[in-house]
């Protein structure tokens, strides 16, 4: 009898553990199961389908019923899809083109300005170089001639000697 009771207790414990394990599903999976609508088992899966219905008419499947205005709006929206996309693309394209033209123009302006500045600098530098060359040439031309200075020294020496000699002669007489 004791054996039988222990077997029953063991079985009931195992049963509760298995039930708990079934309840503890991963949270993401539970979420997906919540999001996906539960299709009644009596209906077969028809895929993506629509059905025209009159009021009080039996529907062929469980789904969403649209009013004529809602259906017409949906049709018009879907039909205008391509045109809407084309408008958006056209706008993006024109904006990108305008920005490209602007950026190109800015770079061109900068390049032109840089070129003009460099030209001005070259012009100024060539004037500077010419002036310095002239100064150097003037200095070279103004350089004293050693022969002239030699002659001047000789003349001064002769005069000094003559003067000294005349002074001595005058003193002795």
């Amino acid at each position, binding site marked *: 009898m004791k054996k039988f009771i222990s077997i029953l207790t063991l079985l009931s414990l195992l049963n509760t553990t298995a039930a708990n394990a079934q309840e503890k599903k991963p949270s993401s999976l539970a979420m997906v199961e919540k999001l996906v609508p539960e299709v009644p088992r009596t209906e077969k899966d028809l*895929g*993506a*389908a*629509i*059905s*025209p*219905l*009159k009021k009080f*008419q*039996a529907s*062929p*499947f469980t789904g969403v019923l649209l009013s*004529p*205005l809602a*259906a*017409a709006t*949906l*049709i*018009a*929206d*879907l*039909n*205008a899809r391509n*045109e*809407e996309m084309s*408008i958006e693309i*056209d*706008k993006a394209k*024109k*904006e990108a083109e*305008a*920005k490209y*033209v*602007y950026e190109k*123009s*800015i770079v061109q*302006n*900068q390049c*032109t*300005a840089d070129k*003009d*500045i460099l030209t*001005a*600098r070259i*012009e*100024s530098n060539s*004037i*500077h170089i010419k*002036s*310095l060359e*002239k*100064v150097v040439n*003037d200095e070279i031309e*103004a350089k*004293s001639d050693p022969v002239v200075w030699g002659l*001047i020294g000789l003349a*001064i020496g002769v*005069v*000094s000697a003559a*003067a000294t000699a005349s002074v001595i002669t005058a003193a002795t007489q």
Partner: protein
Amino acid sequence: MLASGAFVVGLLLLRKDRSGLLKQLEEIRTAHEKEIKQINAIREAERLKNEEDLFKLQKRLAEVQKQYDEAKIELDKKKKKEIEDLITQFGDDPVELAERLSAATGFRVILPE
């Protein structure tokens, strides 16, 4: 007396004319000032051109936005007209509406039994 005379003669002979050098320095200074003025004028012209280009960009973007808004308004009008037409023509014809919706979405139509 003799030495003083020789010194004066030497000074007169050794004296250099520095006016040419000063003139050259003046020329360099003038050229440098001209260069600075040119650079400032070039940068100013660049700034003005950039402003002009920015103005052109803003004008073009405003033009594009205007064209976009007009196209959107036109499309909305077209959609409203299409909705009105659909309601007027097939407001009480769910089969035709379903066919149109099927054509737009690709969903198949299942007629009720």
